[in-house]
Structure formats: structure tokens, C-alpha cells
């Protein structure tokens, strides 16, 4: 056992250090980091210099609301049928936004404090700044001092919320899958094309050692990317253990897929063709489930069996307030099924890799 571990460790360590000198692999890694950073920053950049969004639920027929709608200092969104409806929309925000409830008797002048809501991932400083900005404007519009109460009024995302959580889930899923599909097979191709694989296979290393070592190197870089993603999206994460667990399962799946691609291809051209043949059926369904409400039920029932969709849904569930380990609907924050699907796909792929490795072994 010690010998096996030494061999696997040696090949994995060589791959990890050599990858940093390999232009193709460096480009893959930097592209993934750029991508994950872009998903993080882009929605926030869009809101810079813009009037803050205020989602207003008007319980009565307040005169303040038309004034807010015509204000240039804020952008009021109105017309919500209930407070819950407003909160549901607020949960799909991309940038720091404020939810505001105007009570039915507001115009009577009895109320000087309104209930305000912000998303849980908005930092306290931004929330306070937003609150003050809106307070000043609505006080000016109403002609009297009005304060907004935020303490404890935090809104969490739902598994089917759009906005920032959806973008983060998409960015993380995309990055993890791309690391597996592009980096791992390149590690294997490098050995084949440089014919160093022959030297490896006459050394004490066998095909199983080499495959496991490539998997370890792939997991190392996937873990590094996951660490960057977690650092960037740390405010979004409500259940760290679940997000990390889902991302690691996703990385395992991606690495298994990468190993299979690497074992099936002999040239970069083959990898490009086969890679796209895999990437498209994985990524298109993820895009489709973003508009799940517009899909026919039967189509969604099929799509949810696809591993990339399972990863995407499990990640979104992990950002919600109360995920539960049950095998029901992902929209009810039950992550059992997507996680089990992801693991089952990983197992199936690893079985295929094992079969392929046995074939390669002379």
C-alpha cells in the first residue's frame, strides 16, 4: 500500500507542479478564475452609479408610492400583490436592494417607521447606506421624517430564486465542470503526446496509478478553484458544509468525466471534438433550468437527471435558508436527489474509466 501511495503521490505532485509551467493548463486555470470573478463582480458593477432599487409593497393606496415612482433618487418597483410576493422578488436581486412595506394607514401620518428588508448577503455597511439613502428620499417626498427598520428583516434566497444566487450557482457549476473537462484530459494527453506515458508504464507505475494521480491533480486544481469561489462568494453561503460538499461532489464528477475523456482521446483535436460533444449536453440543460417555470413539466423532469443540472440545483439549494436532506423536489430545498444523482453519475463514470484503464493495460 505504501508503495502504491508513493507512486500515486509522485505522479500527482509532478502533475501539479508541471501544470504551472504548461501554457495550455495555465490558460484553462486563469480563464476559470476570470470567469468565476466575472460572475461575482458583473452584477455589482452594473449597479454602480445607479439609483437604488426599492421594491415597494403598498398595503393601502398610499400617496407616497406615486411620488417614489417619479423620484430620480431611487428606482421604485411596485405592483406586488402581497408582502410575500415582494419578498419573493427581493430574494432574486442581483445587487443590494431594499424591500419596503408601506402600511395601509401610512397617509394618516401615524406611522413614522416602515419595515424594510434586505437580502442576507448584503453587508451591513451597504445595508445601512442603502437604508439612509432611502430614508432621506422618502422623508423628503412625504414631507415628514420617516425611518426604516431593518434589524432582523433579512430575506433569504429560495432554491428557485433568480438573480445573484442563480448567477453564482451557474458560475460555480460552469467552472467546476470546465476544470474537469479541460484540465484533466490535458494532463493525460500531455503524457501521451510527449510519449512520457511509455516511460511511466515501464516504471513501477501502472495505468491505475497514473489514472488516480491525474484524478488527484485534477481534484487539487478543482479544490483550489473552489477555494477561490468560496472566498469570492462567502457572503452568499448559508450552509458552508453543504456548499463545500456539493462542490466537491461536482469536482469528483468533473474529474471522472475528464479522466474518461483523457483515456478515450489521443490528440488535442480528438479532445476538442469529444469535449464539445460533452460540454454542450451538460451546459445547455443548465441554461434551460434557469427558466424552469417556462419549461413543460415533462422536459424539466428529464433535465433534472442530467448531472450538470443536479450540480446546479444542489448548489442553489445550498444557498437557501433551510435545505433538508430529503429526496423530494429541489424547489422545496431538498438536496437529497440532486446530490445522489451527482454521486451516481460519478460512480458510473469511474466504472467506465476503470474499464478503459483495463483495456489500455495492454
Amino acid at each position, binding site marked *: 500500500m505504501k*508503495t502504491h501511495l*508513493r*507512486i500515486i*503521490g*509522485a*505522479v500527482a*505532485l*509532478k502533475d501539479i*507542479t*508541471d501544470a504551472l*509551467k*504548461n501554457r495550455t493548463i495555465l490558460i484553462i486555470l486563469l480563464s476559470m478564475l476570470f470567469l468565476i470573478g466575472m460572475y461575482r463582480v458583473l452584477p455589482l458593477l452594473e449597479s454602480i452609479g445607479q439609483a437604488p432599487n426599492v421594491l415597494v409593497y403598498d398595503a393601502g393606496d398610499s400617496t407616497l408610492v406615486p411620488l417614489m415612482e417619479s423620484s430620480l433618487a431611487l428606482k421604485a418597483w411596485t405592483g406586488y400583490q402581497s408582502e410575500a410576493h415582494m419578498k419573493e422578488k427581493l430574494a432574486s436581486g442581483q445587487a443590494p436592494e431594499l424591500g419596503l412595506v408601506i402600511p395601509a394607514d401610512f397617509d394618516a401620518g401615524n406611522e413614522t417607521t416602515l419595515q424594510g428588508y434586505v437580502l442576507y448577503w448584503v453587508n451591513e455597511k451597504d445595508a445601512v447606506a442603502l437604508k439612509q439613502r432611502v430614508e432621506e428620499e422618502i422623508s423628503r417626498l412625504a414631507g415628514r421624517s420617516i425611518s426604516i427598520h431593518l434589524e432582523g428583516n433579512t430575506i433569504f434566497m429560495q432554491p428557485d430564486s433568480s438573480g445573484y444566487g442563480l448567477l453564482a450557482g451557474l458560475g460555480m457549476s460552469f467552472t467546476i465542470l470546465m476544470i474537469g473537462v479541460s484540465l484533466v484530459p490535458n494532463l493525460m494527453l500531455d503524457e501521451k503526446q*510527449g*510519449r*512520457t506515458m*511509455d*516511460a*511511466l*508504464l*515501464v*516504471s*513501477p*507505475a*501502472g495505468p491505475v496509478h497514473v489514472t488516480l494521480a491525474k484524478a488527484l491533480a485534477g481534484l487539487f486544481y478543482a479544490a483550489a478553484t473552489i477555494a477561490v469561489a468560496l472566498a469570492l462568494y462567502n457572503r452568499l453561503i448559508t450552509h458552508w458544509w453543504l456548499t463545500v460538499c456539493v462542490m466537491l461532489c461536482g469536482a469528483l464528477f468533473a474529474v471522472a468525466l475528464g479522466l474518461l475523456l483523457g483515456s478515450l482521446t489521443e490528440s488535442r483535436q480528438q479532445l476538442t471534438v469529444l469535449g464539445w460533444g460533452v460540454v454542450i449536453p451538460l451546459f445547455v440543460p443548465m441554461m434551460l433550468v434557469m427558466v424552469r417555470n417556462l419549461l413543460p413539466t415533462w422536459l424539466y423532469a428529464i433535465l433534472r437527471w442530467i448531472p450538470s443540472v443536479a450540480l446546479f440545483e444542489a448548489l442553489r439549494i445550498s444557498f437557501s435558508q433551510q435545505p433538508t436532506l430529503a429526496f423530494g423536489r429541489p424547489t422545496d430545498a431538498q438536496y437529497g436527489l440532486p446530490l445522489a444523482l451527482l454521486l451516481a453519475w460519478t460512480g458510473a463514470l469511474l466504472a467506465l474509466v476503470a474499464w478503459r484503464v483495463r483495456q489500455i493495460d*495492454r
Partner: protein
Amino acid sequence: MNAIEVQNLTRDFNGLRAVDSVSFEVQPGEVFGFLGPNGAGKTTTIRMLTGQLRPTTGTARVMGCDVVTQRDALKPQIGIVFEYQNIYERLSARDNLLFAARLYGAPKARVDAVLKQMGLEERANDRIKKYSNGMKQRLLIARALLHEPKVLFLDEPTRGLDPNVAREIRAFVTDLSRQGVTVFLTTHYMEEADRLSDRVAILHKGKIVALDAPARLKAAHGGEQTTLEDVFIALTGTELRGRFEE
């Protein structure tokens, strides 16, 4: 115990017989020249003897290890210099050797020892990309010797090298043999085979057509003025010669 024992070794590729019932033995410490025209089956034989390829039929043992069933025991006993330069070009010579040392569980001190032995210590930290062909070949030999194998397979080790490096490598083969390492050598340079080998086998269309000491082969095919190249052409170039004579 013979260093290499081969019995009726055969390998087919899609119905074509690349190696046809080859049998021979190699003594410990012997330099065994394995000669033949392109496509005669030399590299296929080496691949079978080093456990890279399963024979279709027949058996082979290297240092007592069956090449099919005892590959794990076989691997530490052998070193190979391939006919192509398969090293990690982005790594330095030292890193290449340290990697090989980790694979074989060889002590790190061996890395410095073989770097010195092959005259590479001054450029040990340079990336391989900057190396000349001759330096790369010396590094390949260093890698093959790192774990102190009992049998060294050299597949055309001097091909494409300048005469000085080729001479160094030949001298090195002689030294190894003196140290008791068995050398299995394939080459297209007949003079090299003649000078280095204790015995040579000439392979033609997958079959051994001659196997003896170079001097005895030359004597059997003409006498004092006959070269090993003459013997080689007499045994393997009949069809070609006939075509020119027509």
C-alpha cells in the same frame, strides 16, 4: 540464471506477425546486440520483454520474472532508453530525475550520482527544452540507470547523435557491462554493434536468422575482410540486392 530467457515469443498485430517464434538467452553482464532492418520486430520484442506488450504466444523471463505475470517484480530490475526522447521538457534534468527517483523509491543521492556520472551536473537545473539532443540522450540514460537496474534495454541509443556523444555513450555501455549490467542493445549501426556486443541476433521478418558472436558470424560468412554489415545484408537484404541486380 540467465538475465533474459525467451521461448518461442510471438506477437501478432491484426493478423500480421511482427515477431515470429523467437527464442534466445542472454547471460548476466552480456551486451546483446539485437539487429534487424526497420520493421523486423526489434522494438516489438523490447516492448514484450519490458512488459509493455503482451505476447500472443510464447514466454519470456527477465531476471527470472515472467514478463506477463510478474510485471511488478520485473519493473525494478530493468531500465529502458526508448528510441524516442520521452522526457518532461518543462522540467529540469534534476526534477525529471527526482520524479523518477520517487517512482522507484530510489534515494535522492542517486540523482546527484547519475547526474555526475552522465556529466550533466552543471546544467542539472536547466529546463530540458534548452538541452541539445546529446544531453537529452545522456539524461535518458541517467534516468534508466537511476534505480540501478540489472538489465538495461537501449533502443537505438546513438541514433541522430554527433560522433562525440555517440562515442561517449558507447564507452558508457562498455563500462556498464564491466560492472555486471546486462545490456540489450538495438542499433542500425553495424560497426557499433560489432564493437560493443558479445553476441548479436539478427532479426528478419520477425524471425531470428542468425545468433552468435560477431566474430564467428563474420567468419561464417566470408572471413577476415567480412564486416558485420556484410553479414547483415547477406541475411536480410537478399530481396533488395536481387532487385538491384536485375
